[in-house]
């Protein structure tokens, strides 16, 4: 999903990131590329223009360019703006008193019927609602049979088909049935229609007036081009939509419509269709979507943020000490603390999609958080003297430390051994003069000792 857009955006942002200082011209150039990337992903032009204007205003303004990490700031601005564009936070259906009617609308081929069945299944299974579905599509051949078939697959009841009925009559009968049989939700699938088709839009308005839907959802195809805006706006003006279901977000959709629809109508995207199976409907989470669009870029941002939380001065002080080959348990303690904070991040990182490569790195570094906590406890149970001169720690001191930290003598030994190895390694590194290289390696934050391998 979003591959095209993701690649383009990450490419632009990565190039930006590789620079130290940024000039206004760098930002301008990046923005031009972002504009093209968004347009090629079919984000609506007015939305793109707003987006670029906003990001420029925030990026070129005051502190950003003069800050320590201007590129990161720009990436963050783009990310934040994307989240805003997508709607901020997830919004659920607002169903109200039963039978709550959900009216499904949209163009032909946007996936209304399949979405109707998916949504019915979702409400039955997840929200424990009794759902009735009915198709008002008397135009497309076999449309009603299609819904009946899908409903059967979803284990949801569908209104019996009476040939020759018009949309309003079906709607009336469906509502009646839902009331009598005590259904919680009635989902009405409608004929796909062009927003410029006066007759059909009038019919839809009549249905709406009859059933007074709690939710009127526009089912929109994520593959839609610049026209998405026009369609969404017209449906909203004529029928009044309360939310959007975006279909076909699997495929190779660049998903520009996802970015446009919300911005243009101001109506939240409530669900996304992500596959051909009936369970492939998910509540929409703007934050996650933004992260997915920026993919690696976003992960990298997270790592960088983590690096920022390691207090810079502390890291630099440690780096200096390490460069001189001096590294006592006091220093190790601080290191472990930072690793632990990063480890917390690793949990978050692991949950983000599309970061298989990075996940491997995280696994490889074996950040076992519990172990780090225990090691910190061990060091905390030492006297300052012991921390500065670990060589004085012999048998009885070890027993005291183990007891104090709730660990075993073996664990204390392991820590001490690890520390000795780190010191040895530091000396070697110092001789080789390659410390800088090591510190900057593989996304590890500065100051992380190369020897930290808790296992």
């Amino acid at each position: 999903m979003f591959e095209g857009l993701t690649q383009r955006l990450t490419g632009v942002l990565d190039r930006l990131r590789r620079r130290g200082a940024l000039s206004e011209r760098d930002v301008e150039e990046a923005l031009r590329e972002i504009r093209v990337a968004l347009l090629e992903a079919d984000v609506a032009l007015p939305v793109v223009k707003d987006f670029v204007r906003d990001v420029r205003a925030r990026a070129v303004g005051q502190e950003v360019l003069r800050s320590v990490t201007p590129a990161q700031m720009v990436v963050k601005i783009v990310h934040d703006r994307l989240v805003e564009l997508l709607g901020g936070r997830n919004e659920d259906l607002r169903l109200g008193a039963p039978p709550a009617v959900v009216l499904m609308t949209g163009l032909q081929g946007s996936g209304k019927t399949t979405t109707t069945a998916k949504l019915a299944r979702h409400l039955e299974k997840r929200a424990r609602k009794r759902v009735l579905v009915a198709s008002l599509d008397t135009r497309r051949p076999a449309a009603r049979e299609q819904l009946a078939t899908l409903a059967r697959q979803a284990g949801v009841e569908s209104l019996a088909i009476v040939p020759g009925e018009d949309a309003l009559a079906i709607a009336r009968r469906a509502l009646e049935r839902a009331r009598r049989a005590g259904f919680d939700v009635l989902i009405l699938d409608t004929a796909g229609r062009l927003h410029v088709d006066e007759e059909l839009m009038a019919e839809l308005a009549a249905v709406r007036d009859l059933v007074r839907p709690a939710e009127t959802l526009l089912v929109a195809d994520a593959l839609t081009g610049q026209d998405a805006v026009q369609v969404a706006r017209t449906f909203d003006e004529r029928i009044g939509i309360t939310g959007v279901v975006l279909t076909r977000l699997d495929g190779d959709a660049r998903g520009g419509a996802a970015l446009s629809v919300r911005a243009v109508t101001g109506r939240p995207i409530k669900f996304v269709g992500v596959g051909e199976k009936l369970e492939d409907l998910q509540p929409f989470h703007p934050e996650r979507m933004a992260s997915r669009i920026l993919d690696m870029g976003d992960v990298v941002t997270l790592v960088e943020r983590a690096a920022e939380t390691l207090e810079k001065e502390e890291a630099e002080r440690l780096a200096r000490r390490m460069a001189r080959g001096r590294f006592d348990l006091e220093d190790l303690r601080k290191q472990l603390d930072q690793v632990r904070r990063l480890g917390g991040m690793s949990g978050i990182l692991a949950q983000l999609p599309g970061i298989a490569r990075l996940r491997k790195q995280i696994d490889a570094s074996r950040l076992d958080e519990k172990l780090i906590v225990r090691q910190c406890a061990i060091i905390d149970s030492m006297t300052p003297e012991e921390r500065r001169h670990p060589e004085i720690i012999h048998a009885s001191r070890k027993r005291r430390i183990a007891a104090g930290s709730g660990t075993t003598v073996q664990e204390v030994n392991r820590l001490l051994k690890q520390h000795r190895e780190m010191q040895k390694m530091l000396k070697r590194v110092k001789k080789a003069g390659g410390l800088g290289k090591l510190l900057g390696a593989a996304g590890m934050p500065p100051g992380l000792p190369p020897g930290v391998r808790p296992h």
Partner: protein
Amino acid sequence: MSGERGWFGRLRERLSRTSRALGARLGALVRRRRVDDELLEELEEALILADMGVETATRLTERLRRERFGREVEERELRETLAGWITEILARVERPLTVDPTRRPHVILVVGVNGTGKTTTIGKLAHRFAAEGPRPVLAACDTFRAAAVEQLVAWGERVGAPVVTGRPGADAAGLAYEALQRARREGADVLLIDTAGRLHNKKALMDELAKIRRVLKKLDPEAPHDTLLVLDATTGQNAHAQVATFRELVEVTGLVVTKLDGTAKGGVVVALAERFGLPVHFVGVGEGVEDLRPFRAGAFARALLDLDAPAEAPAS
């Protein structure tokens, strides 16, 4: 010629809704103005709004910069110029779909993402063939989508063409084989094969389409004689991905562009012509059975820019 004009009028009427916005935009920005950076940028945006894509839009505006920069232009002149350029691009892909009567049947495989209007297009094509002479047989090889078969059967009844069907989930290739056998037996002129459009499951789709082609070739080494990719005009730049993907899966021989009767501008066709050069055979301009029309480069370009009937067919 009158048929052609009638067709043009219809497309233009449909497209005029479409391009009114674009036309109005161009109009608003061009009325006797100097061609400068600002104008070129506005123009580029108008073209992007028509879904022509950044690359094509930029190329057209850059050409305008080279050839017209600094001059005073009139709205109409500018549109004529652009329509001319777009016609040049599209003329290469304006090629009719011809049924070879000696093949008996001429096998046409219809592919595309779901929801683009494959089944409807087949129905309309069948209607068109039946009206012109060649007798069609339809094969409902989309055994995946619920009720796809019923939909095609309904079309078959409407146009009086036999439809070969199987059970839901049946083997699509087996069905295609059976359909070709039957079409031969009945001496049909055209066999139209509907397929599933499961883009999200590329592997399954690839296997299925490859198998359909393989079994068809067992009976006729040259089949399928045509493979049409159906594109939805409301699709934006994703159409590029769709063409690229399906060309990987099957030898796409031509395009059909549907749903040009909304406000979608279908400008991506111009970009596709530049990039792939695949023939565009038909455009869908409405829901009626008559609303699948041969593609005409000049008419398409001019309608896109909200210009009157083509110069070669002056109003008398």
